[in-house]
């Protein structure tokens, strides 16, 4: 969100009464304590030894350890490979949807966004149920072709690549969709006049014009893949950087290895920030904003191309949604093994994970709800400060929101463990021993969504609308109640529900911080799966999907638009 825009909107320096100053101070206090301090803390840990002396020894150890170096290399390669794979699929889908007319276009444009909303952890499980060693596909293959050994679709880096690609391509599609629909037709017509046609025009003009969207999409995909440790663990891959960070931290035995976990998470943060800065610099040189007077008209596809397009999208949807079907089957299947589909069905697993052990669902709803509340209390005033005032430090706030978006959950989780394991003054209990730390970490991670959606809603309410109200005699409070709030509440609510969905799916930072009794659904899924109770994991997965779907439905009813707009 460019700060430059706000300059035109915020027209005057408001008087700052004491209460406003206190509010402003509290927001900064929150940001400093819960964002800046933990990050500083892991860097301090990474650069110091057991007795607190500053040293580069930890990094020396990392960069001389062949296994760590290989993990770093693997993570980078996997990240790049995922970006390439999601680019090919994401660009193809975006172009088909924006530029061409074919049967089912609208339906596909909705469906292609679905994998993004479905919990990634559940997706991984589904893939294992369908494509795993004893999964449906392998059972069928062995049955039909008398194969002695199952095909290894899943276990290994290629499995991670498959899962990440199918989960993340919608982010790429969405980013490109946004850029592409803003491209002024005359830019392409100008190319047409000088003789650039077909593929040439696409390569030289159209595709480069989507760069801003593409870069943000690619960045998101890369950082996500780079920092994800759950997917690799489920498919048995350990030589990746994020996985090493997780394993080193949770073992709690060897202090040296524990410190290496911190070093790795510091590296994750640094790399994420470097990637963001490089990407920003790359886009910033060129001014892509143009005055678009019209939209490029959609072209009808020819009969053959039309069916190819429909076939491609249908296959893509089938492959990306099949795992969800796998999870449902596993959840209701009784003793499902070595058959393509379960032979007997039961609802027992649902009873076990909800009635017998209700804490997963209760904790998820409670913590995510609280997280959203914290987001609103901190995020809406932040958006207001950025959109409506000229307070010094607005730029820093904007930069901080971007920073939070870039930092992997893994790193935040580790940072919190390090930063808040000291007994708090007065109550003698460490923050990491109180369950409130979970809503807090969830809130910090989702804060950018609330800030951005509130900010853009505030921009819709032009300052002059408020001034007009004050001009006819409305006080500050009446103005906010009668003018500002009615115009922006929808945007804020949509942002809040979206934060809720993302919080309830969260399976990185919280996995580090969860203690007995605080388990949320993803933690339950993960631990059931690792313990071999696949059916219970699947049942929780189905519940999670249902909760997300219900929230998504609410968003759609309220906003009346695709959720996608929030990423723009």
């Amino acid at each position, binding site marked *: 969100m460019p700060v430059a825009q706000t300059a035109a909107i915020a027209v005057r320096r408001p008087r700052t009464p004491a209460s406003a100053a206190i509010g402003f101070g509290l927001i900064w206090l929150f940001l400093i304590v819960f964002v800046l301090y933990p990050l500083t803390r892991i860097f301090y840990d990474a650069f110091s030894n057991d007795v607190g002396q500053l040293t580069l020894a930890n990094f020396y150890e990392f960069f001389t350890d062949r296994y760590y170096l290989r993990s770093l290399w693997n993570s980078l390669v996997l990240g790049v490979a995922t970006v390439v794979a999601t680019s090919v699929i994401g660009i193809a889908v975006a172009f088909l949807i924006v530029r061409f007319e074919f049967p089912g276009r609208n339906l596909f444009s909705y469906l292609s966004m679905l994998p993004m909303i479905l919990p990634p952890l559940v997706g991984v499980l589904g893939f294992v149920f369908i494509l795993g060693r004893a999964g449906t596909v392998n059972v069928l293959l062995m049955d039909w072709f008398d194969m002695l050994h199952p095909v290894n679709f899943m276990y290994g880096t290629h499995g991670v690549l498959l899962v990440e690609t199918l989960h993340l391509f919608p982010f790429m599609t969405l980013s490109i969709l946004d850029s592409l629909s803003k491209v002024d037709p005359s830019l392409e*017509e100008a*190319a*047409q*006049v*000088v*003789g650039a046609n077909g593929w040439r025009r696409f390569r030289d003009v159209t595709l480069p014009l989507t760069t801003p969207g593409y870069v943000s999409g690619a960045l998101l995909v890369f950082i996500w893949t780079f920092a994800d440790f759950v997917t690799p663990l489920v498919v048995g891959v350990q030589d990746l950087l994020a996985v090493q960070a997780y394993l080193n931290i949770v073992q709690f035995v060897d202090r040296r290895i524990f410190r290496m976990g911190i070093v790795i998470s510091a590296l994750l943060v640094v790399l994420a920030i470097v990637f963001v800065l490089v990407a920003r610099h790359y886009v910033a*040189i*060129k*001014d892509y904003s143009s*005055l678009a007077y019209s939209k490029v008209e959609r072209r009808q596809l020819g009969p053959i191309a039309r069916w190819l397009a429909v076939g491609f999208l249908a296959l893509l949807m089938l492959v990306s949604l099949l795992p969800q079907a796998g999870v449902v089957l596993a959840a209701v299947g009784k003793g499902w093994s070595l058959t393509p589909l379960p032979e007997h069905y039961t609802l027992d697993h649902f009873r076990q994970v909800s009635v017998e052990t209700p804490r997963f669902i209760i904790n998820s709803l409670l913590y995510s709800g609280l997280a959203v509340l914290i987001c609103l209390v901190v995020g809406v005033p932040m958006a207001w400060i950025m959109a409506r005032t000229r307070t010094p430090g607005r730029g820093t706030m904007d930069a901080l929101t971007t920073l939070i978006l870039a930092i992997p959950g893994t790193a935040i989780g580790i940072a919190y463990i390090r930063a808040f394991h000291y007994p708090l003054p007065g109550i003698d209990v460490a923050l990491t021993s109180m369950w409130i730390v979970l809503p807090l970490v969830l809130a910090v991670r989702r804060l950018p969504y609330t800030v951005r959606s509130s900010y853009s809603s505030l921009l819709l309410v032009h300052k002059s609308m408020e001034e007009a109200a004050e001009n006819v005699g409305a006080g500050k409070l009446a103005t906010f109640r009668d003018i500002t709030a009615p115009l922006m509440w929808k945007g804020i609510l949509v942002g809040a529900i979206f934060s809720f969905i993302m919080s309830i799916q969260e399976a990185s930072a919280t996995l580090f911080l969860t203690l007995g009794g605080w388990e949320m659904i993803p933690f339950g899924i993960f631990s059931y799966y690792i313990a071999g109770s696949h059916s219970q994991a699947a049942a929780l997965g189905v519940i999670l999907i249902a909760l997300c779907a219900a929230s998504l439905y609410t968003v759609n009813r309220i906003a009346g638009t695709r959720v996608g707009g929030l990423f723009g």
Partner: protein
Amino acid sequence: MRIAVENVTKRFGALAAVSDVSLSVGEGEMFTLLGPSGCGKTTLLRLLAGFYNADEGEIRFGDRVVNDVPPHERGIGMVFQNYALWPHMTVSENISYGLKLRKVSSSDAAVRVKEVLARVGLTGLGGRYPGQLSGGQQQRVALARALVLNPQMLLLDEPLSNLDAKIRVQVRSEIRKLQKELGITAVYVTHDQEEALAMSDRIAVFNLGRVCQVGPPKALYERPANRFVADFIGINNLVEGTVRSAEGAVLQAETAFGVLSAIHDATLRAGDRCVICVRPENIALNGQSGGERNHFRGRISFAAYLGNTLRYDVDLGAGVTFKTDVGDPWDHEQIPMGTTVELSCAVGSTLAIPAG
């Protein structure tokens, strides 16, 4: 390159954006398509460019029918309203892209880019990105990009509408000079009648998809053929009337405030409905004389001081208000509102045109 447009119609759904239009543009002419938004001028330009295909009629460049020729084979250079510079390419890359596609060697291309940049006065800016240039500079780059392929004609789609007023006047004279130097045929679309008058060899005034009148600027301003053109170009005082007698070049018409004498193009007959047009600068206040004149009387209802002129609204009664200009009001004492004044205008600058 001559352009001939014959009976061309272009429909979007049921709406005919361009309806049975015929025009011809001469070699080296600066020809302007002028009209309010939605009048079909841009659609016609895009038909010339090849972005649309005509539903009916024929378009010829020279002797070649181009109806089915794709844009890049028409030998045109086009300048777009919003410049349409590719933001991811530098100025030089923008200009040389078409050369690259034509497999011009990069050293030749560099020479041509340098030449054309010098022509539009942007020497040394080849390495910049469009986003680093001002609006006026961007428009010059767009012009350079259109010219570098040595097109046989130039199509310009409201190229100045995004520029500030002062820059606009400057760039428009640059475009005009360049077009004359190169002797290139140019078709220019604008909704700004002043711009059209200042730049064009000839103008076609469009309304509702049809051509209302074609002619040089002076003819359109002084002898509009119909009410739309009389009203659209410049400021005009119009009053409806009925022709009483029409003999030779001068007729008498009955209007709401008396009988006026007016020149006409000999198409009006006694009994016809007509519109009398008088430009504000041709109406004199109080007791001017010389030649045959129409006289009327009214009350000052409004005055606007414009610096180089002072423009009065004079209420002539019967719901008719005429504007009259006092040129160079340096020594003119402003007349108070409500004052009754005598107005007159020469019959030679009072024009009668058919009503409707």
